[in-house]
């Protein structure tokens, strides 16, 4: 009984983290699917989302507004607006001018952007990690009171529900809306789509904005879950999310969701049964193994190399 409870606890923790990884991973996978580049600065966009949410929450607290749904809504809106603008601006400044050049050039530009944004926040807000107020406290507990108890906290439930809502909206948006259809067309064949009258530049911008908005949601959720933010907080999360995107098959949106969940569970199982220090080793090791043995990921399509 104890073992099952412990196992389910790790599973719940893993799914919580995994669903936020999935939210961030969608940004990587959509951008890769359309223009075939790794948006290295995506982790920083997510970090900026978390910072903006924290600034909004603190600002509201200073004003004396404490009604929880309003606070969450305002924080979410601010984070999404600032991160999306950032995503748009980054694409405009650093990626559009180098699009279509040798593969390494956009990647180096993206790494430069990532370093720039990290230090931008570092200089503006200091390098210390800042405590994120726990807005949603409390948890359901299961199991005998005196031994190990399974706890399912309200914030974990919030994370599940929010992720589920975001994923549903995104899937509907991609499947039904005009822009979503255009996105799919552009990712299949950029040249052909532009011949058929789709404004590809606008669609690429839209992809960055959507990815950044989802990353901002993840920033708010993970900020509340971990309880602190610092300027380096996006880097590792970004790498993990990228791993998730590759695991699920880069370019595929359901793949990113699946990959995020698998990666989250693998990580929390490692910290639950081995040691917390090695969880990063496990996820990077997983990344290396996937790229070696199944570079297309779980749900990805094989890429045909054209001559």
């Amino acid at each position, binding site marked *: 009984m104890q073992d099952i409870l412990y196992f389910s606890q790790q599973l719940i923790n893993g799914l919580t983290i995994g669903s936020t990884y999935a939210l961030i991973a969608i940004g990587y996978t959509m951008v890769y699917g359309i223009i075939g580049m790794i948006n290295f600065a995506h982790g920083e966009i997510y970090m900026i989302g978390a910072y903006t949410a924290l600034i909004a929450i603190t600002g509201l607290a200073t004003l004396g507004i404490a009604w929880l749904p309003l606070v969450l809504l305002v924080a979410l809106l601010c984070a999404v*607006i600032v991160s999306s603008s950032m995503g748009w601006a980054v694409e405009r400044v650093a990626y559009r001018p180098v699009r279509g050049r040798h*593969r390494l050039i956009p990647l180096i530009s993206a790494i430069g952007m990532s370093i*720039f944004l990290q230090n931008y926040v570092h200089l503006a807000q200091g390098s210390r990690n800042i*405590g994120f107020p726990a807005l949603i406290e409390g948890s359901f507990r299961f199991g005998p009171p005196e031994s190990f108890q399974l706890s399912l906290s309200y914030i974990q439930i919030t994370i599940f529900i929010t992720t589920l809502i975001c994923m549903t909206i995104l899937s509907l948006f991609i499947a039904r809306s005009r822009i979503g259809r255009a996105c799919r067309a552009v990712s299949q064949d950029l040249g052909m789509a532009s011949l058929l009258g789709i404004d590809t530049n606008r669609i690429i911008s839209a992809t960055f904005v959507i990815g950044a908005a989802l990353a901002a949601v993840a920033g708010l959720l993970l900020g509340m879950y971990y309880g602190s933010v610092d300027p380096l907080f996006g880097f590792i999360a970004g790498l993990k999310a990228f791993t998730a995107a590759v695991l699920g098959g880069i370019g595929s949106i359901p793949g990113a969701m699946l990959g995020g969940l698998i990666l989250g569970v693998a990580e929390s199982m490692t910290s639950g049964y081995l040691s917390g220090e090695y969880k990063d080793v496990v996820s990077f090791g997983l990344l290396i193994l996937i790229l070696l043995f199944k570079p297309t990921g779980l749900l990805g399509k094989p890429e045909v190399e054209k001559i």
Partner: protein
Amino acid sequence: MATPQFKHALFCAVITLVIAYPILGLDLTINAATIDLQGADTSTVVAIVAAAFVVFFFQLYRDTVMASLRKAPKLNPLSGREPLPQAKRVKLESWVLTGIVVLALFWPFFVSRGSIDLATLVLIYVMLALGLNVVVGLAGLLDLGYVAFYAVGAYTFALLSQYTGISFWMSLPIGALLAALFGLVLGFPVLRLRGDYLAIVTLGFGEIIRILLNNWTNLTGGPNGIGGIPDPTLFGMEFGRRVKEEGNTSFHETLGIAYSSEHKVIFLYLIALVLTVITALIIRRFMRMPVGRAWEALREDEIAARSLGLSRTAVKLSAFTIGAFFAGFAGTVFASKQGFISPESFVFLESAIILAIVVLGGMGSQIGVILAAIAVTILPELAREFADYRMLVFGAAMVLMMVWRPQGLMPMRRIHIELEKPE
């Protein structure tokens, strides 16, 4: 007058405000238990608004501004000049380089200890950048975990000296070879991957090495690192005040001069200088050998190179291994210079700095990379008050270089045969 251009300019200005104001204009300050939000000082807010206006007007008159920029006279007076004939250029280059090396040999005897220390650090970065230049610049493989090989070199020396008492000179080839072995073992499976996947895998590898160093406390001392790494000796002469190891003599007693702590610093500098020159010469040789040509061929067009019979794995692996070898070299020198190493010296940022050096200098160009290494290491020391902005500037510089001048400040010039002009 809501022309599309005006709308676009307005939109850009609003976006500038949105991305700059919350992060720059509002400060989170920690007060004991609570966090406060304060508006930044007026000058910051004015700067943000001014930036928005600049963006607005630039976007509004973008076409005119760009057109007039194109018409403006070229700032570089040399740009219109005929390039020197190759034979002359090569000769001039080798004279200049020899002159610089001779100058560098005598220079430490006239300057302060601090500047020699800094110069040693610069030389270590030059070595690292030359090594990474082989991988990124010549072979076109983006390696984001280069610092891992540097760590292997440094830790090899530290651990060997701690457990077996092996000296610097014995450890130098061992560290470099071990780093090369790591490069070989890692490279073998991953070099099949496409460029950007390779970048991420090497990044993951670098992180794994760092986490292992951090957590394998029994062997590496974990975050506390390893101290007491011995200094190099000169033919059994030690540079300390007293001789530590039996059988050795001390430098100042043998030569009959007064003890000075500067001897050791100068000696380390000279070792680094000699090793850097050796590195540069070896890599220069490689560049002209068939294997060097093969690196570039594979970088330019993989399919064409393979159809001409080049083995993709062998060529890429050789570049990766040679790059790792020189990182191991640099790591050993670094360990003995610092006398203490910890995983903190081998973070991703370090890889990014070395990459920035290679990119700024011009991928593949040796002189460019050497100059960039000097500039990138010395400039933050000269302008201490701007040291905080160092990484910000690096990041921005990497983006701007990719947008405007992806070939770097001093692009590589290939050795080629020139046809004689018909009279």
